[in-house]
């Protein structure tokens, strides 16, 4: 069932591929990510060294995000599935979800990652360390707390996914929509150094 939907989807995509381009920006010069120390959902330390020796797709969000974050996670999983047809397994990027709302995220992150049942790493930690990484990727977030007792606040945050190369350098940014097939093709070209400059 899923396969046939996927097939129809792909058919639709290949027909409409031209109209569905990827909102990507390739940096003229790769920018190294600065050092930071965060913690993964399983409690292990996550630093810049975990960004090395593999490609990374990093995006920021929060566990209480009802719409954008689950959708982006699902999209990036679909991108990985598409990419697995195009690149060797060692080039398949890891997906990293930077949770920027530690007051609510720290406790939930492990269950959150498990809930999706897909391959990604959730990281969070001290506000100052989160901010280091957010700054590094030229990202932004703002907790929209109405007051100290507001438990249901939204978080305004950057929409873009940051592409980090195996040297731990930012090489590209991709903005929504993340159409799985097109984004995978875009990334496959990018990782091979065959970028179409935009």
């Amino acid at each position, binding site marked *: 069932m*899923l396969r046939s*939907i*996927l097939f*129809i*989807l792909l058919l*639709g*995509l290949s027909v*409409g591929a031209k109209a569905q381009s990827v909102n990507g920006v390739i940096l003229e010069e790769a920018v190294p990510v600065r050092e930071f120390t965060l913690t993964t959902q399983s409690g292990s330390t996550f630093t810049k060294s975990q960004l090395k020796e593999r490609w990374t797709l990093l995006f920021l969000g929060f*566990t*209480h995000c*009802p*719409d*954008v974050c*689950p*959708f982006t*996670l*699902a*999209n990036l*999983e*679909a991108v990985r599935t598409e990419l697995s047809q195009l690149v060797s397994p060692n080039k398949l990027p890891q997906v990293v979800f930077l949770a920027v709302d530690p007051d609510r995220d720290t*406790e*939930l992150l492990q*269950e*959150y990652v498990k*809930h*999706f*049942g*897909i391959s990604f790493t959730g990281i969070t930690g001290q506000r100052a360390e989160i901010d280091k990484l957010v700054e590094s990727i030229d990202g*932004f977030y703002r907790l*929209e707390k109405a007051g100290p007792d507001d*438990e*249901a606040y*939204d978080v*305004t*945050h*950057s*929409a*873009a996914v940051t592409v980090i190369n195996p040297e731990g350098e930012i090489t590209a940014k991709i*903005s*929504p*929509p993340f*159409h*799985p097939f097109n984004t995978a093709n875009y990334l496959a070209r990018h990782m091979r150094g065959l970028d179409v400059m935009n």
Partner: protein
Amino acid sequence: MFHVSKHWLAAMAWTIAMLVLAITHGPASAGSDHSNEKKMQPIEASGFTVTWAKSPAPAPGVNSAAVYLMLENGTEKDVQLVAVESDAFVMGHIHKTSMTDGLMSMAPVAQLTVPASKTVTLEPNGLHIMLMGPKHKFTAGDQFPLSLVLDNSHHIKAVVNVVKPGDVLLHGHADKMMN
């Protein structure tokens, strides 16, 4: 050993707050000015079709759920969607996610126009119904009722399917692709 986690306390405080809200405001609703009508049996609007109503199961500890759907107005009059209600949640709102200068944010929509003979699609990164305060835990495969309230206070009834968090993806895109 007795251990009360911060999260448990927060959840408790939140539940109490929601209960107070529920008592003072009646069943889940967004918008206002129709609290009186609610005591009467709502009139069901005819000529409307809701399809694809689904809600990704929220992660444990998350007290809100997004609902996506397609609403077809088969009548010859434009209508306004002014509120959403569900017996399974404490309250609900219509929300719009928008991207401005690369930033994603979410804002309430006071009323949503559904033009005559047109379909409005609520889908990820666009419009969604946000339900707050689930009255019990939902997992993929569950269903819950939803009521869309029009400006003439008529209700459109729908059943929402709870799906796995990634399951809105294929349909949402497929629908878009086929247009």
